[in-house]
């Protein structure tokens, strides 16, 4: 099929100077250029150049880690789009939610997708954690990566919690009331932490703004850093673990 018109035009395009200045590796037909595709790329070089075939099977990991990561990407994209119409002010926030639902094109779809992906993210990170536990993926030398993973779990819960307040409806307000009152039961630090988190003593406009900044800026930034560390450590610790039973199959 090397001689069809599209193939030839693509080949011509790829041989231009401009193209070759951007994409330097050439077509991925040799193992050398396939290696370059990974470690010559800023984003992809978090992956190893070669992987064990057994770790690619669906039943090895169910791709749960990848699912968590892709959910994060979807949440970021929908979240940024939602930010264009949302004012973190009382009671404007609630009116914006109604706006998104009835007035904004695809507003209801984007909000649905964001909320759904948020719930799915909580489920996925728990499932991913339990699956890593049951296949022993936390054992040395992967211990620290497990700890980073627990940190990501807490980040996910906190991201979901801060996002829950933003619609400023009854459901949001009282869910957060209960949660912040639990924090005040922590000895010594409880009340000051609640004061800092809410920016005051009551759940009002200060609290909404702080939760908004946490949800959209601080926590995602920390999450990006930790996700980077987490993915990097998978490679550096020696790659994905596969359960003992799967190891023993097809032993060469």
């Amino acid at each position, binding site marked *: 099929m090397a001689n069809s018109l599209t193939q030839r035009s693509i080949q011509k395009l790829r041989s231009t100077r401009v193209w070759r200045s951007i994409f330097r590796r050439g077509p991925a037909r040799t193992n050398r250029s396939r290696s370059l595709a990974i470690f010559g790329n800023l984003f992809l070089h978090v992956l190893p150049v070669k992987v064990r075939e057994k770790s690619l099977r669906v039943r090895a990991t169910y791709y749960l880690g990848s699912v968590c990561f892709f959910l994060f990407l979807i949440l970021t994209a929908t979240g940024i789009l939602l930010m264009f119409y949302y004012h973190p002010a009382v009671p404007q926030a609630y009116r914006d939610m109604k706006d998104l639902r009835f007035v904004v094109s695809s507003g209801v779809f984007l909000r649905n997708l964001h909320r759904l992906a948020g719930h799915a993210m909580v489920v996925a990170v728990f499932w991913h954690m339990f699956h890593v536990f049951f296949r022993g993926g936390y054992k040395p030398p992967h211990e620290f990566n497990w700890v980073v993973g627990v940190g990501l779990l807490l980040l996910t819960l906190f991201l979901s919690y801060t996002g829950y307040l933003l619609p400023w409806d009854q459901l949001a307000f009282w869910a957060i009331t*209960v949660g912040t009152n639990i924090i005040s039961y922590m000895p010594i630090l409880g009340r000051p932490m609640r004061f800092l988190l809410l*920016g005051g003593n009551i759940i*009002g406009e200060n609290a909404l703004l702080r939760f908004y900044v946490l949800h959209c800026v601080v926590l995602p930034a920390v999450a990006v850093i930790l996700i980077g560390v987490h993915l990097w450590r998978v490679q550096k610790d020696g790659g994905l673990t596969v359960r003992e039973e799967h190891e023993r199959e097809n032993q060469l």
Partner: protein
Amino acid sequence: MPESDTATSVAGRRAENGGGETDRRDFLNGIAAAALGVTGLGTVVTITKYLSPNVLFEPPTSFRIGPPDDYPVNSVTYIADQQVYVVRTAMGFVAESAICTHLGCITQWKPELDQIACPCHGSRFNRDGTVAQGPAPRPLSHFGIRLTPDGNLLVDRLEILPQTQILKV
């Protein structure tokens, strides 16, 4: 020139110099570390103070609730915008917080039960604020209440009274 500060080379230096040069280096290192520590601590404290608001735009904490005659004897009146119960008994007035002491939900006065009930986890309080049943750990707070010179009752949320204190009118 020694290349790295491993344990062996420091001990070696100390042995050679009889405690002179190395002590000065360690001393200066200590000062630098202390300076960094103070900077770090100062940064954390400054950021925390920055994040703690000094001015709060929250509802006023002391408010008037009208003359005593507005409240019949042996009644419980709920003031919605301040979340306070004004309880008048034969002996006098008590102003109680309507916020459940368990997790902060707003309670409701149920005259048919003669109790104050919290919808969140089923706590119930008596008229005087003591816990009748449920997971609430403490009785409802009694706020400061006094009679102003012009004959109105004034409630102050920031003043917490003992459970037994009643304003006699």
